[in-house]
């Protein structure tokens, strides 16, 4: 058969010392190892970012709390946001993409393996640089240490005058450096997907995960670059006396906002599109049907990519733009909801008429669809500029975007973890523990983030280290913090499950889910060379064709 793996002698494995093994990982250019390093790196920072969030929520559990000082709180909220976006979400999605894309397109590695490694280490260095600020960032009047300007770092708060010391510089440089890594990864993804597909895999036959990583990579190129430019401008302002955002010299604070959100909005699509990919791979397998409307799914993703570049100023509805500008961005933001909604219908269409198996990956994907629906709807509400004038910069917005990031992205990631863990490790996870993880986390998520909409509607702004009693916010903040502990419990169960399964899980075999894409055609974990010989495909589901030679997909596509 085309891709049975060849057993290589592993006689020397047990004699390799720990330093040799570590060295192998540090110098590797293999996409699978790099992918796993990205994922592991992100998981460590997920825990750190989670601790920062917990500190924030404990401080806010009652009004006028003294758990941390305002200075520490402001650093926590800045570091939490920056860490989660740049050093958790992006690396973990790059990691999954790195691992899966070459396997799913029948290639042996990414197009540029050394660039791949370089990009990873750039990103890793960026994260370490950011956290070095805790010990290295001293400045005048003790106003150094970790950055405390919020993860959007609005000007002129970030100017030398208002942010003394080096804390802002750590933010700027760490994100700048990891941004270069992201651009390198994006270039690699595009070159791989365009140039390294196996014979027969036209663009119309490649898995949706490949399509979505392609669109994501294109967005990274267009989105990260404006941030890079803006941060270069900020450094010039802070160090050589430039006036880009210097309002005293006639500069504009609003132009930072434009540049930042021209990055910031496509960035959130960079984060969610790979999660759409996970759901689009998992739901068909666990419904036992092909994805409903493959061409429309591709078209909708591309449309989202383009339209997402035109919506950025909905983060700026309150800055006093003209009514025409506000109306335009209301319109474009609502329009981008249409292709997104189409995807939800297509996922439900996939499940319709199928035979749904409610294992952990599918549970997380169903929760994703449910939660992403709500998040999308609160997004449509916020798209109406007057609604945003009331609820922008309030806890309603915090609830909305956590609904997308935790309820959407993180749930899809958990699903992806459970789905591909057998492939990556060769072992099955424990289904009972996985379901416990699901329900605990689900309860905690909803307790925290459903209720969080309410203080926003009752006038609670964001980024405040404490609040006045008697505003009607106390009760909700208390319950919101309680939900955090359920989420922590869920994540602990998840980590325990992964650890235990790595050690004691039963062997998974090549294809434990009876799935249809190429990664399931090779061993678990795959050998270094991925496939013994490069496969040739004739349809979108090569393994379906193999398993059903009397009724192959290529007859119907």
């Amino acid at each position, binding site marked *: 058969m085309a891709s049975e793996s060849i057993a290589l002698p592993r006689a020397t494995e047990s004699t390799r010392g720990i330093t040799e093994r570590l060295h192998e990982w540090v110098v590797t250019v293999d996409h699978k190892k790099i992918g796993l390093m990205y994922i592991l790196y992100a998981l460590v920072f997920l825990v750190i970012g989670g601790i920062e969030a917990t500190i924030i929520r404990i401080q806010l559990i009652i009004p006028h709390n003294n758990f941390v000082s*305002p200075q520490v709180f402001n650093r926590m909220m800045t570091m939490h946001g920056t860490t989660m976006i740049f050093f958790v979400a992006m690396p973990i999605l790059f990691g999954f993409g790195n691992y899966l894309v070459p396997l799913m397109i029948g290639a042996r590695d990414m197009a540029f393996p050394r660039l791949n490694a370089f990009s990873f280490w750039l990103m890793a260095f960026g994260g370490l640089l950011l956290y070095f600020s805790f010990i290295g960032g001293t400045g005048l009047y003790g106003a150094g240490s970790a950055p405390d300007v919020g993860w959007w770092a*609005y000007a002129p*708060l970030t100017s030398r005058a208002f942010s003394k010391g080096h804390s802002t510089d750590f933010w700027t440089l760490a994100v700048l450096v990891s941004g270069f890594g992201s651009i390198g990864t994006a270039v690699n993804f595009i070159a791989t997907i365009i140039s390294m597909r196996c014979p027969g895999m036209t663009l119309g036959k490649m898995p949706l995960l490949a399509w979505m990583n392609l669109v994501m990579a294109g967005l990274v190129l267009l989105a990260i670059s404006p941030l890079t430019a803006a941060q270069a401008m900020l450094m010039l302002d802070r160090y050589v006396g430039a006036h880009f955002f210097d309002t*005293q010299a006639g500069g*504009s*604070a*609003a132009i930072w906002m434009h540049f930042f959100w021209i990055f910031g909005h496509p960035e959130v699509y960079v984060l969610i599109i790979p999660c759409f990919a996970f759901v689009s791979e998992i739901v068909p397998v666990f419904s*036992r*049907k*092909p994805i*409903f*409307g493959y061409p429309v799914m591709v078209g909708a993703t591309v449309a989202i990519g383009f339209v997402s570049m035109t919506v950025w100023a909905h983060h700026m509805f*309150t*800055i*006093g733009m003209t*009514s025409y500008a*506000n*109306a335009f961005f209301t*319109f474009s933001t609502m*329009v981008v*909801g*249409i292709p997104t909604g*189409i995807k939800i*219908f297509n996922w439900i*269409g996939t*499940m*319709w008429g*199928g*035979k*749904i*198996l409610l294992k952990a990956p599918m549970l997380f994907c*169903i929760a994703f*669809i*449910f939660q992403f*629906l*709500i998040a999308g*709807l609160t997004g*449509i*509400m916020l798209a*109406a*500029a*007057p*609604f945003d*004038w*009331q609820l922008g910069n*309030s806890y309603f917005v915090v609830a909305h975007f956590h609904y997308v990031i935790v309820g959407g992205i993180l749930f899809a990631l958990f699903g992806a973890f459970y789905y591909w863990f057998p492939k990556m490790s060769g072992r099955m996870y424990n289904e009972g523990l996985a379901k416990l993880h699901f329900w605990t986390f689900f309860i905690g998520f*909803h307790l925290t983030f459903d209720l969080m*909409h*309410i203080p926003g*509607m*009752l*006038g609670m*702004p964001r980024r*405040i280290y404490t*609040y*006045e009693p*008697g*505003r*009607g916010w106390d009760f909700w903040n208390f319950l919101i913090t309680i939900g955090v502990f359920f989420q922590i419990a869920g994540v602990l169960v998840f980590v325990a499950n992964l650890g235990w399964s790595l050690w004691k899980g039963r062997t998974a075999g090549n294809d434990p889910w009876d799935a249809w894409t190429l990664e399931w055609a090779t061993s678990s974990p795959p050998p270094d060379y991925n496939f013994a010989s490069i496969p040739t495909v004739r349809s979108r589901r090569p393994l379906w064709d193999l398993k059903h030679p009397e009724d192959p997909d290529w007859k*119907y596509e």
Partner: protein
Amino acid sequence: MRVAGLAGLLVGGLLAAGLCYGAAADPSPIPTMFRPESTPAASIHRLSLFVLAISGIIFVCVFWLLVYSVVKFRKRSDDDGSEPPQVYGSNPLELAWTVIPGLIVLVLFLATARVIHAIQDAPRPESAVEVTVIGHQFWWEFRYPGLGVVTANELHVPVSDPAHPTPTFLTLLSADTDHSFWIPELNGKTDLIPNRINHMWIDPHREGVYLGQCAQYCGVQHAKMLLRVYVDSREDFERWVEQEKKPAERNDAVSAGRRVFETTACINCHAVSGTVADGLFGPDLTHLMSRETIASGAALNTRENLRLWIHDPDAFKPGSLMPAMNLNDQDLDALVAYLESLR
């Protein structure tokens, strides 16, 4: 999946509970956009209910489709292991669920654009009260250019009768970083951005005190840059303006305190009209005692709080830009007595 259904009901119920705060009669300390007391807030409220209703309907429809598909097409325990019919798509369905959302977007957009235009491009009547708001780290400066009044942190405006509106038009500026003016019952928020002039307007229909706070992260004490708007009857407002226009009362009984004020660094930041103090960095103190709070709402305006604020500002607002004045007890008491004379 029943749990998901219950969760959905819980969410809906909580949202409804939140909305029901709109039922109370008096303006209360709970700031909420669902109890509008001003024309712009009211039109935002109506639009919000419309948008919420449409979103609610979409949610219910899609949610039940999801739940139905999971329940109905679940793999049965007596399943024969065959694969279900492999359906690749349906062009009519794709068209339908593209066109219908498109129409919904169109309707929502048109409704929204009307409200945007009505609020932002509202004409300014002659009878409008004009206030210039200047945001500082971490307090609000209010100037009434037409009336010759300068005050801080507590904004007084006249109530506006819908039949003969007397709105207040605010010009929003900033002296340092970005801030945002937000009183939910009166209007949505608008930012105060340095080197930029923004505008907003309110026409409160009911007298009372409205609470809000700065809504754009502006630095370490963003959380305590609180805001109060006092909506007065026409007569009360005019009385307030008359009082505010007067220079500071000169009371010889507190001259010791005045000397402390005028010879320490107080006058570098603060102004008291009719005296040598004309600093602009901090709030104008000419009529300090006409305000209910100090430190932009961080504390009530009482003798003990005033004393503590001057002695150690970090006690109320750690990181605020008011320095501890390092006065001995005698000077401090005299100073407080002087400040208490500034009615």
